[in-house]
């Protein structure tokens, strides 16, 4: 199965390379990868449908839990087949949809890369591997939505989609890791076989649900999906209706059987979120006049439907979910393709400008009407038996307080679905208020063909549900071991489910007939801000917040930087020193009167440097400090050090003078009183801290220093009496080597700075 993924990657690279030469035909080349996948899946299908899943694992970074484990079971076969099959059709469609241009190769490459990633999600049997492919679909989706990158709206929509789904993905990663640690494995099949029950399973699943909800555009994260419609239609058809948005649903379907009952919040949360999404999406779809947006909200609604069905986590529900997943993919992809054809041939996709298209585009209209009818849940079309099954489950009950909510919600949602399906089909193809005589030319065969295939399938599965049953039943059994015995049927007799279906369609008809009243009502009822506005405000807040924080901490002023560094250096250790440091037992104030005298003079000179107002005076005081310290070195017993200090100080004075001669005599600018006090305070704190720390550190010493060794070895082993010099040139010669390197580089730097011409001299 890894080979399939790699094949897609290879196809993507090929498309990228050949895009310029082949033009839109490059999509046909790219279509080879999903085509091979269809073949391969079909080849494995018999065994899998019999309940014998195929496993495959490749160790990537096992100690991190990263294992490329794949598993093809009935459910994976269903979803994977859809991904690959619709992938082929979309590519064919795209080869006629796109015009020759620089972006074609990129679009084909990204589309096939996406197909590979999506296939990866479905086939992966490892939580982390799912995450890998999950984020890959987010990235490819980002690049695909923004493929027309010169449009600002496309860029913004791409970012919106990426942030929401990518963010959800990160939450999901957190959840995966938690779940993996509770279970002791990341292998999905093992976790599902023996679900962990530790205290962190709840939080883990909550995080995973966030990821699933964002990806499947569930309320309140749904705002990105309509925006993503700014992508070219083949992309919308594939990513944002048939495949990627189903990733979240897919994950819920996988996890629900194991956790829906065990985790208290799962069922109410998922069911309520799903229903809310279903109703909200359907409601919004009733209002849209852009056919593509209408379908987008319809997709949101249908995703809510599937989330609800799978979320319950019981066999009948799961079975219904799998059936809807299949039929939705068929009709929704067809509908998107039709919208693309309309847009392509009629030059608009606005309902207000369209009407009676069946005259100009009879075949297209037929395809559209069949697909829309399937969406509406009319009999003899694929969705009907699936929906029946769902109503059956809903009316069957057994979920306590959720029962009435589910029944009403699902029927209501289906009514809305029927209403916008009618509106779609009527408004553009059959009747239509615009009734503008369109001069649309018939579409190319490659444009219509794929939609035709899909609609034909909708009819076939509607007439003979047993065909759908062949794949749906094993899919449900793969999720639920005890889902056997459930089957789709054309006719169940006059059951309560049939009544529910009739009610849904009937209410749908009423809503459709009274559509203008509905729109007026919608305008009046708008209380919640649209999701996209919430997102926009969040981004604005983030940007402003970033400016605020950065403006505060990164204020560009060197004195403040230095002050913060110094205070940090004092505060962190000081806390411990005050808490537990001990001062020395014996106090020696000074060893000789001479030493006392020199210290006083040195301190005086140091104060002098700080208060001097003239540069030269300050430098002279600095010299005083240096010489004072040198004398202290002598007293301490360090003649080499003292000599060096004397000479260095002298040379430093000379350099100072060389530089200062070009600068004003006095220091410029008088800082404010407040900053003066602040500086004094910091200076005082640092001074006290260093003194105190020095005393504490010295008091903490217990043993002798390593210098005993130096004194002992210097003459006999290194042949020198001056131990300091021996240390410098022998014991620790590599220090000295580094030190002269510093000198050398500094010399080079000085020369470069002084000699390089000053270009921007003012």
């Amino acid at each position: 199965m890894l080979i399939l993924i790699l094949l897609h990657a290879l196809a993507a690279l090929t498309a990228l390379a050949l895009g310029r030469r082949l033009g839109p035909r490059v999509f046909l080349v790219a279509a080879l990868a999903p085509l091979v996948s269809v073949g391969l899946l079909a080849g494995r299908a018999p065994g899998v449908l019999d309940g014998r899943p195929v496993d495959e694992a490749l160790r990537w970074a096992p100690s991190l839990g990263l294992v490329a484990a794949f598993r093809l079971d009935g459910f994976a076969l269903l979803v994977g087949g859809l991904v690959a099959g619709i992938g082929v059709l979309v590519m064919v469609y795209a080869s006629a949809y796109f015009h020759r241009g620089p972006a074609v190769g990129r679009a084909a490459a990204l589309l096939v890369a996406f197909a590979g990633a999506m296939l990866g999600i479905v086939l992966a049997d490892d939580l982390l591997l799912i995450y890998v492919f999950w984020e890959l679909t987010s990235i490819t989706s980002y690049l695909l939505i923004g493929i027309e990158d010169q449009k600002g709206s496309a860029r913004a929509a791409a970012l919106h989609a990426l942030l929401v789904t990518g963010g959800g993905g990160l939450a999901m990663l957190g959840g995966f890791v938690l779940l993996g640690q509770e279970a002791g494995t990341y292998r999905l099949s093992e976790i599902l076989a023996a679900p962990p029950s530790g205290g962190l399973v709840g939080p883990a699943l909550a995080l995973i649900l966030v990821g699933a909800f964002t990806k499947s555009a569930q309320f309140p994260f749904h705002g990105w999906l309509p925006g993503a419609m700014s992508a070219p239609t083949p992309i919308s058809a594939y990513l944002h209706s048939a495949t990627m948005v189903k990733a979240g649903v897919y994950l819920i379907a996988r996890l629900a059987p194991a956790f829906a009952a065990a985790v208290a919040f799962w069922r109410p949360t998922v069911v309520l979120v799903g229903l809310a999404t279903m109703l909200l999406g359907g409601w919004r779809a009733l209002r849209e006049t852009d056919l593509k947006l209408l379908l987008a909200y319809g997709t949101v609604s249908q995703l809510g439907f599937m989330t609800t069905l799978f979320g319950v986590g019981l066999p009948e529900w799961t079975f219904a979910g799998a059936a809807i997943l299949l039929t939705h993919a068929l009709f929704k992809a067809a509908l998107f393709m039709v919208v693309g054809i309309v847009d392509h041939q009629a030059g608009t996709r606005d309902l207000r400008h369209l009407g009676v298209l069946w005259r100009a585009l009879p075949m297209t209209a037929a395809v559209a009407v069949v697909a829309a009818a399937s969406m509406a849940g009319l009999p003899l079309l694929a969705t009907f038996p699936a929906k029946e099954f769902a109503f059956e489950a809903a009316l069957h009950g057994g979920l306590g307080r959720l029962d009435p909510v589910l029944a009403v919600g699902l029927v209501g949602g289906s009514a809305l679905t029927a209403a916008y399906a009618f509106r779609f089909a009527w408004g553009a193809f059959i009747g239509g208020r615009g009734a503008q005589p369109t001069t649309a030319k018939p579409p190319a065969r490659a444009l219509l063909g794929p939609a035709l295939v899909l609609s034909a399938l909708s009819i076939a599965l509607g007439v003979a549900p047993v065909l759908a049953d062949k794949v749906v039943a094993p899919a449900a059994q793969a999720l639920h071991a005890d889902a056997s015995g459930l089957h789709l049927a054309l006719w169940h007799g006059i059951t309560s489910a049939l009544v529910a279906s009739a009610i849904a369609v009937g209410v749908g008809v009423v809503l459709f007939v009274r559509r203008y009243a509905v729109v007026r009502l919608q305008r009046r009822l708008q209380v919640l801000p649209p999701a996209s506005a919430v997102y926009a405000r969040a981004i604005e807040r983030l940007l402003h917040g970033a400016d605020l924080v950065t403006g505060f901490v990164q204020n560009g002023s060197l004195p403040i930087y230095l002050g913060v560094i110094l205070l940090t250096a004092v505060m962190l250790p000081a806390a411990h020193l005050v808490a537990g440091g001990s001062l020395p037992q014996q106090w020696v104030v000074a060893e000789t009167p001479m030493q006392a005298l020199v210290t006083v003079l040195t301190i005086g000179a140091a104060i002098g440097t700080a208060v001097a107002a003239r540069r030269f005076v300050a430098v002279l005081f600095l010299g005083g400090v240096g010489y004072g310290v040198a004398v202290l070195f002598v007293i301490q017993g360090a003649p080499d050090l003292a000599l060096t200090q004397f000479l260095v100080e002298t040379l430093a004075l000379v350099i100072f003078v060389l530089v200062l001669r070009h600068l004003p005599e006095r220091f410029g600018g008088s800082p404010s009183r407040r900053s003066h006090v602040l500086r004094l305070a910091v200076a005082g704190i640092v001074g006290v801290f260093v003194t105190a720390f020095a005393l504490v550190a010295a008091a903490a010493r217990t043993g002798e220093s390593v210098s005993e060794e130096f004194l002992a070895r210097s003459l006999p082993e290194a042949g020198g009496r001056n131990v300091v010099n021996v240390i410098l040139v022998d014991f620790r010669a590599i220090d000295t080597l580094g030190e002269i390197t510093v000198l050398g580089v500094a010399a080079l730097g000085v020369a470069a700075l002084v000699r390089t011409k000053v270009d921007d001299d003012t």
Partner: protein
Amino acid sequence: MIVLLAVTVGALYAAGVYLLLQRTLTRIVIGLAVLAHGANLLLLLAGGRAGRAPIVDGEAGRVADPLPQALALTAIVIAFGVSAFLLALAHRSRRQTHDDIVQDDVEDRRIARMARGETHR
């Protein structure tokens, strides 16, 4: 440790820090130099009490710890080299701007202004 010397070290640090927290590069360099003196003195103090110079001549008596002396010597010379570079930098800055005031970072100030709502992106 000798208290008076520890106090001297503290005083040098204080004076150095006071000079450091200003905008004139000359003062900053002087401040860093005073700080370096303080650090070197501290290094020497870390070796303990005073003693005879660590030169092996067969005489008895307490010998000063040679290692901190060697370390301090290295530190002094390094500080000298780097200060020379910093002064060359001041020299070049003077040639470019005719002063040795350390300016605030331009981009940082712009963002700070933006955060206060004084300018827009």
